[in-house]
């Protein structure tokens, strides 16, 4: 591959930020929907399960679309990474896809289904939310391991390691951690979306404490495992800038407890914002840890980038489309902000 010019390196870096931003928005927005789906598996009343679905009816599609945007940026700007990583992750991605499709169908078709099928549809919705979160998390864990590439001269390096290389105890753990994290997001979402005094909101409130400590423990465990098994992580964290990483850690813990205080005070919207801030802090910290790799040990953002990146297309996308997208997304969430009650189920 030809090297990138200086300006292209800068543009590639900027695209990488855009990619991370899309992934982060997806995790923050759709994470709550997925978590509410996992939570719905433990909701007994059929009307309440329906109400969970109508709580996200107007926005789930747009939230999920951030993943598609991330996929588009990855394909467009980092095609070498896209083509090889997706072959590597074929199995977890196919299963996560199965989950997304099933969720979409359950969400859109439930209100049309006959009564006996509604229970089935609800189970599909809950299980598929769980599957998306688990295999999504597993895919991230598997990516952190890196994967082997071919070395044929004159041809782009690609993946040949078989379909099941992605399975490791670490990737299984990241899958579980992802489920815990989205469940916390889902519980907060349900608290914010339902009327005070609704039984489902009470149930979510009871869950919050337990899930909060679980999530905290999961984050701590993930950080420790990372430091032990990945030399690139340990090098950064315990290198000359160790004090900065310490500050990040303190900030995350502080934000987490601010979130808990907001939950206690019934300030549900603030709780979500604090939670999202904690997720954002951790995501940025992880991105900085991995940099300059996009897949550790396999592709850096510069070797994985398309040689066709240009300032023009970047400016067009970021200056023109991204702000507009953020605007109408925000407007949409604003329109559907009202709290609802279980009566609001699709009829």
């Amino acid at each position, binding site marked *: 591959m030809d090297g990138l010019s200086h300006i292209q390196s800068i543009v590639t870096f900027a695209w990488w930020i855009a990619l991370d931003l899309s992934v982060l928005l997806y995790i923050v927005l759709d994470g709550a929907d997925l978590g509410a789906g996992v939570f719905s598996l433990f909701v007994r009343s059929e009307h309440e399960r329906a109400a969970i679905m109508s709580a996200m009816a107007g926005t789930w599609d747009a939230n999920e679309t951030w993943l598609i945007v991330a996929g588009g940026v990855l394909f467009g700007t980092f*095609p070498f990474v*896209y083509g090889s990583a997706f*072959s590597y992750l074929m199995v977890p991605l196919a299963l996560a896809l199965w989950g997304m*499709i099933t969720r979409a169908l359950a969400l859109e*078709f439930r209100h049309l289904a006959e009564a006996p099928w509604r229970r089935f549809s609800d189970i599909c919705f809950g299980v598929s939310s769980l599957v998306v979160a688990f295999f999504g998390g597993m895919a991230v864990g598997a990516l952190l391991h890196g994967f082997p590439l071919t070395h044929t001269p004159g041809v782009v390096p690609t993946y040949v390691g078989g379909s099941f290389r992605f399975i490791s105890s670490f990737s299984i753990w990241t899958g579980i951690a992802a489920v815990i994290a989205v469940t916390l997001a889902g519980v907060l979402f349900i608290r914010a979306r339902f009327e005070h005094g609704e039984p489902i909101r009470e149930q979510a409130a009871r869950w919050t404490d337990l899930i909060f400590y679980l999530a905290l423990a999961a984050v701590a465990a993930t950080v420790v495992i990372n430091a032990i098994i990945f030399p690139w992580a340990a090098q950064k964290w315990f290198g000359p800038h160790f004090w900065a990483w310490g500050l990040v850690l303190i900030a995350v813990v502080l934000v987490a407890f601010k979130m808990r205080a907001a939950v206690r005070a019934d300030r549900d919207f603030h709780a979500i914002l604090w939670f999202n801030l904690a997720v954002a802090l951790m995501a940025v910290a992880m991105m900085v840890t991995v940099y300059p790799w996009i897949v550790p040990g396999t592709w850096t953002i510069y070797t994985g980038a398309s040689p066709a990146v240009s300032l023009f297309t970047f400016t067009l996308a970021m200056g023109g489309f991204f702000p507009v997208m953020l605007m109408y997304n925000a407007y949409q969430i604003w329109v559907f902000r009202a709290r609802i009650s279980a009566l*609001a189920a699709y009829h």
Partner: protein
Amino acid sequence: MPNDALTVFVSRLDFAWITTFHIIYPPLTIGLAILLFCAEWRWVATNDEGWYRIVRFFERLFIVNFAAGVATGITMEMAFGILYGPFSQAAGPFFGQVLGYETITAFMYEAGFIGLMIFGWGKISRGMHLFATFNVALSSSLSAMWILDANSWMQTPTGVVLKNGVFQVTDWVAALLNPDVWLGFPHMLIAAVELALCFVIAVSAWFVLTKKHVTLFQRPLKFAVLALVVIAPLQVYLGDGLGLTVADAQPAALAAMEGHYNTYNPDGSVDTSWKVVGWPNAKGDGMAWSISIPHVLSLLETHTWSGKVEGLNSFPPADRPPVVVPFYAFRVMVAAGGALMLFAFWGLWLFLRGRFSVARIAQNRLFLWAAILCGFLPYLGIWCGWWVREVGRQPWVVYGLMRTEQGVSHMDLTSAILWLLGYMYFELIVWGSTWYFFAKVMRRGPDLESPVVHGGHQHLGEFDDRPKGEAPPYVRPI
């Protein structure tokens, strides 16, 4: 690691299956969004309740179709990398960028407004809702433009050089405005409109035929048939033009579509005959039997009486596409398009003779049955059109530059087969439930009781001071 022929074939089937079961949904979304916008605009402009009821009814069918389209569409974006990893890497600089634009400018744009369009009734003003519908129509058409641009580039890859195994873009304008897209995109967009018109025609005809809400559905039936009078011939015209582009850019694909093996007859004259039906011989270098009409091939492909059309035997065997699929798929597509045009003219004749009134159209059972049949023909046409396009391009994934076997991922045969079985099962369920729910929405019929919505105010949740315990006024989402 070289890919063996069987694995390549199964990988092709994998992708063919998911695309075949994706392409039946987006065209209806695109076309129906445009029609919904027109009908809603008439409602906002005239305050005629009939238009409102029609919009709300067809919107319910629209939602069912849209959900299936999203579900099968997300699969597509991931499948490029999973099934065609090396192709995605090599073509990424152009192909990936274009798909990236599709997600940013069209997919996201559509997702943003579709939530407002479906669930915004009663929450946003009428004007804002109309604006949301407009944006759904525009964004879904934009999506078709990007996708067709990417696919057309695979047919006629201009503006790139293949260097170190990567398609480097040397000329963005030439790549984006490649020769095939000029007619490829309009042909698809008009196909989407034609499909939606036929869908509206078939659904409305069913209501008129079964004597339910006849006055309500006579109007969409009439307008859709009249629109089809323009759209159906336009589609035939565009298709003919696209055929000329294919003849120019991909002569081997054209020869396969026409089952045209020999450029010259044994006596040395140019073979101008067009085969109506036929079957290739075992050796694959000619037709075992065929029924042909002289001069029609030259007329169709060169627009001259006896112009020369290159035959399949002029190409090296390794560069020849399969014949049976493109040959028959092409004929079925043309027949479907022609039948729709004739149907539209029949409708026009009825209209001009004043037989389209509410009372008289309900009596014309033959026309109504034909109208219902018309709802299925465009689906067949779209499928066949894509099969012609994709199978005709073989053995290339990027025409003339990259072979399909170089583009597929290095999967083992078991994974490829498991993927195929998994998605066959899955997408058949999606397809089945889509039709089941179409039928259900139709049996339920339009909702004539609920009050017409007005742009309403709603409670502001966190941001509104309201004494706790007071029940909020609530507008049901659908």
